[in-house]
C-alpha cells in the first residue's frame, strides 16, 4: 500500500500556479512590465512637465554660442560653443582628479605606514591625522581651505618657499618644465630608441627561442612571450635609456628648461599657477582621501599574517628584504580593490567644486542648465561622463588587480 502511494504523489501534475518554473518566468514578466509602465509613466510626465515649462528636448543648443566665461582651464572664449565649454569642464575635472589621486596616494601611503611605525609618537600623530580628516565632511574641509586661501597675503607679500614656490591670495605659483627648441629632436631620438629596442628584443627573443633553447623539450622551453619580457627587461630598457641620455646631449639645446615664477609689475609671470579654487579643492580632496587611503594601506599590511614576517626573518632576510619580498607582494592584492574605490570616490567628490566655484564638469553643466533650460539632456551628459570615468577606472584597476593576484599567488 505504502509503496503504491509515493509514486502516485510524484506523478500528480503540479498545477501551473504552484509550478516554480512557471512562477519564476511569470514574476519576471510581471516585474519587467512594472518597470516599463513606470518608465512610460515617467516619460509622459516628463513630456507634460516640459510642455508646461514651454521647453522641448533639443540637442542643437550644444552647437550654439555659450556666451559665458570660464575662470580657468584650457583656453575658452564666450563665443565658442556649449559643447566646448562642457569639454573644458571635463578637462578641469580630470586635471584635479589625477593630481588629487597622485597627492592622496603619496600622503595616504605615508600616514598608513606611519600608523604601523614602531615609534609611539609617530603612530599617534598619524592616527590623529586619519581620525580628524576622515570624520569631517569633505565639503566642509573644502570650504575651509578656500576660506584660508582667501585670507592669504597679497601678491606683494607672497609666502615663498625656496624662492621658487610662491603662495598668495591669487593661488600658488610653481616652477614649470617647458619644452624648448631641443624638445622635438629629442623626441625623435626617443622614437628611434624605441624602434631600435623593439628590433633588438624581437631578434633576441627569436634567437633564444629558436636556437639557444632548441634542444629543450617544448614544455621546458621558455615561451616566446617570456623571452620577450626577458629581453625587454635586460636589453631594451638599457638601450632606451642610453639613447635617451645620448640624445639629451646631442640636441642643440637642452630639451626642457625650468621656468621660475617671477614677480613683475602686474603679478607673477612664468611657471605654473594654481588658482585659489583649484588649490583649495586639490588640498581638500587629497587630504580627505589620503586619510582613507592610510586606513586601506594599514589594514592591507596588517592583513599579512605575522608568521610570514617571522618566517622571512628566520630564513635570514634583512628587514628591508622582508618588506620588499614578503610583506608588500602579499599586501598589494589586499590594498588594490579598496584603493580603486577611493580613487573613484575622489573623482566623484571633485564635483564638490561647485561649492567654491571651480569650473569642473558639474559646475559647467549647471551653468549650461541655467542658460539653456535643457536640464534633462545636460544631466544625461553629466551622468554619462561620470559613469565613463568610473567604469574605465574600475576596468583598469580590475585588470591590474587580476594581473597582480596572478603574480602574487
Amino acid at each position, binding site marked *: 500500500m505504502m509503496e503504491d502511494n509515493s509514486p502516485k504523489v510524484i506523478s500528480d501534475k503540479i498545477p501551473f500556479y504552484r509550478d516554480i518554473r512557471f512562477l*519564476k518566468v511569470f*514574476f*519576471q*514578466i510581471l*516585474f*519587467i512590465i512594472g*518597470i516599463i509602465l513606470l518608465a512610460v*509613466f*515617467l516619460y509622459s*510626465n*516628463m513630456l*507634460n*512637465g*516640459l510642455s508646461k*515649462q514651454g521647453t522641448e528636448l533639443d540637442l542643437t543648443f550644444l552647437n550654439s554660442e555659450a556666451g559665458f566665461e570660464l575662470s580657468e582651464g584650457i583656453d575658452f572664449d564666450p563665443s565658442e560653443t556649449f559643447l566646448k565649454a562642457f569639454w573644458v569642464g571635463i578637462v578641469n575635472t580630470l586635471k584635479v582628479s589625477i593630481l588629487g589621486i597622485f597627492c592622496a596616494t603619496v600622503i595616504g601611503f605615508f600616514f598608513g605606514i606611519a600608523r604601523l*611605525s*614602531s*615609534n*609611539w*609618537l*609617530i603612530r599617534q*600623530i598619524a592616527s590623529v591625522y586619519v*581620525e*580628524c580628516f576622515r*570624520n*569631517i*565632511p*569633505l*565639503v*566642509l*574641509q573644502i*570650504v*575651509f581651505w578656500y*576660506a*584660508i586661501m582667501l*585670507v592669504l597675503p597679497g601678491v606683494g607679500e607672497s609666502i615663498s618657499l625656496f624662492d621658487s614656490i610662491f603662495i598668495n591670495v591669487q593661488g600658488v605659483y610653481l616652477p614649470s618644465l617647458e619644452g624648448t627648441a631641443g624638445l622635438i629632436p629629442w623626441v625623435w631620438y626617443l622614437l628611434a630608441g624605441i624602434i631600435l629596442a623593439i628590433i633588438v628584443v624581437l631578434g633576441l627573443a627569436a634567437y633564444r627561442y629558436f636556437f639557444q633553447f632548441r634542444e629543450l623539450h617544448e614544455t621546458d622551453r621558455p615561451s616566446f612571450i617570456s623571452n620577450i619580457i626577458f629581453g625587454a627587461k635586460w636589453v631594451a630598457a638599457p638601450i632606451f635609456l642610453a639613447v635617451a641620455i645620448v640624445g639629451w646631449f646631442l640636441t642643440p639645446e637642452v630639451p626642457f628648461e625650468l621656468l621660475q615664477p617671477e614677480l613683475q609689475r602686474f603679478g607673477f609671470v612664468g611657471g605654473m599657477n594654481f588658482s585659489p579654487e583649484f588649490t583649495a579643492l586639490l588640498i581638500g580632496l587629497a587630504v580627505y582621501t589620503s586619510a582613507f587611503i592610510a586606513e586601506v594601506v594599514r589594514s592591507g599590511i596588517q592583513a599579512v599574517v605575522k608568521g610570514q614576517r617571522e618566517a622571512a626573518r628566520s630564513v635570514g632576510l634583512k628587514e628591508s628584504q622582508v618588506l620588499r619580498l614578503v610583506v608588500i607582494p602579499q599586501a598589494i592584492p589586499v590594498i588594490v580593490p579598496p584603493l580603486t574605490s577611493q580613487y573613484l570616490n575622489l573623482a*566623484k*567628490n571633485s*564635483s*564638490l567644486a*561647485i*561649492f567654491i566655484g571651480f569650473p569642473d564638469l*558639474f559646475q559647467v553643466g*549647471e551653468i549650461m*542648465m541655467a542658460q539653456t533650460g535643457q*536640464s*534633462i539632456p545636460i*544631466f544625461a551628459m*553629466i*551622468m554619462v561622463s*561620470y*559613469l565613463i570615468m*568610473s*567604469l574605465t577606472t574600475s576596468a583598469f584597476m580590475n585588470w591590474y588587480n587580476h594581473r597582480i593576484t596572478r603574480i602574487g599567488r
Partner: protein
Amino acid sequence: MENLTFTQEVKPPDTKKGPVKWLKDNLFNTWYNTILTCLALVFLFFVFRGVLTWVFTQANWQVIPANLQIFSIGPYPLEQIWRVSYVIYGLAVLLGLSAGIWNGLTRQITVVIGCLGAIILLLPFATSIREQTLIATVILAVSFAIGRNKDNWKQWVVVGWVLSFPWTMMMLHGFGADTVSTTLWGGLLLTLILAAVGIVACFPLGVLLALGRRSQLPAIKWVSTVYIETVRGVPLIAILFMGNVLLPIFMAGDFQLDKVIRAMIALTLFSAAYMAENVRGGLQAIPQGQVEAAQAVGLTYPKATLFIVLPQALRAVIPAIVGQFISLFKDTSLVAIIGLLDLLGIGRSVLGNSEWTGLQAEVFLFIALIYFIFTYAMSHVSQKIEADLGVGKH
C-alpha cells in the same frame, strides 16, 4: 614547576620597567626612531604653538555663542520650540528605559549622553537651553531608574522606538493649522533628521537591492545591478540636483514635494546603492550550506532569507554598514547646495551676516567639531558592537 617559581622571584632592574623602559621601547629604541621622535616633537611644538596662538589670541569666538540657537535649530520659530523639547524628552524617556532594561553598550551610551547633558548644564549657555537640558537629563535618569530590571517591558520599548520616528516627524511638523513648514527646519536639527531618515530608509532598500542583485531571476538581477552601478558611478551632488531640478518635471500634475523631502529621497536612493553593496558582501560570506540546510528543513525562500541568511550576513558586515551610516551623516552636508539650511548651510548664512563676515575659520571649525563628535562617537560604538558580537572571532 621549580623553574617557574624561580623566574618569578627575580625582579627586573629599574631600567627594565616603568616609564623609562616605556620611553626606551617606544620612542628611542633605535637611532632612526630617536631622530624621528625629535623631528616629531619639533613638528608638534610648532603646530601646537601656531594653533594655540590662533585659538586664544587671534580667533573671534563671539560668533559661536551668539548664534548657538541658530546653529542648533536654524530658522525654526522660537514660539514653537517646545516641539523640539518634547521630541528630546520623548527620546530621553526611551533611551533611559532602554538603558535600564538592556545593560552593556546601551547603558554606556546613555551614561555618556547623560554626562554630556550635565556638562551643558555647567557651561554658560542661555538659560532656556540649560533649563531644557536639565529637564531632559532628569527624565533620562528617572526613566533609567524605572526601567531597571523590567525585562518584560522589552517589546514595548522596541515598539516605542519604532513609533518614535513618526512621532518625531509629526511633533516637529505639527498638525492642523499650527504647523511648522519644513522650509523652517535647519541647523543641527535638520542635519540629524536628514541623517536619521536616510539611515532608516536606506537600510531596507539596500537589503532588497542586495537580495535582488543576488537573485536567480535574471530580470530582477539585472535591474538591481544596473541601478546599483549607475548610482555608485555618479556623485551624490548630481543626484541631489536631480531631485531638485528634474523631479519636479517628472512629477504628475501640480503635486509637488517640498525641498526637504526631495533631499531625503535623494539621500536615501543614493545610500541604498552603497548599502546594497555592503550587504551583498555579507551575503557572499554565507556558505551555500546554510541556505540548503534551511531548505532541507522546509523553510520557504522568504523565511530562509529572513531567519537564516540575513542575520548572519548583516552581522558579518556591521563595520561596513556603520561606515556607510557615518558617510551618510557626513554627506548630509551636501544639501546646502540645493539651498537647505543644514549645519553647513546655516553656517554659511551666518557668515553672510555683515556682523560676522571674515570669521569663516571659526565657524567652519565649530561645525567641523560637531560633525567630528558625532562621527567619532558612531565609529566608536560600531567598534564596541563589533567586539560585543565577536565578529571575526568565530
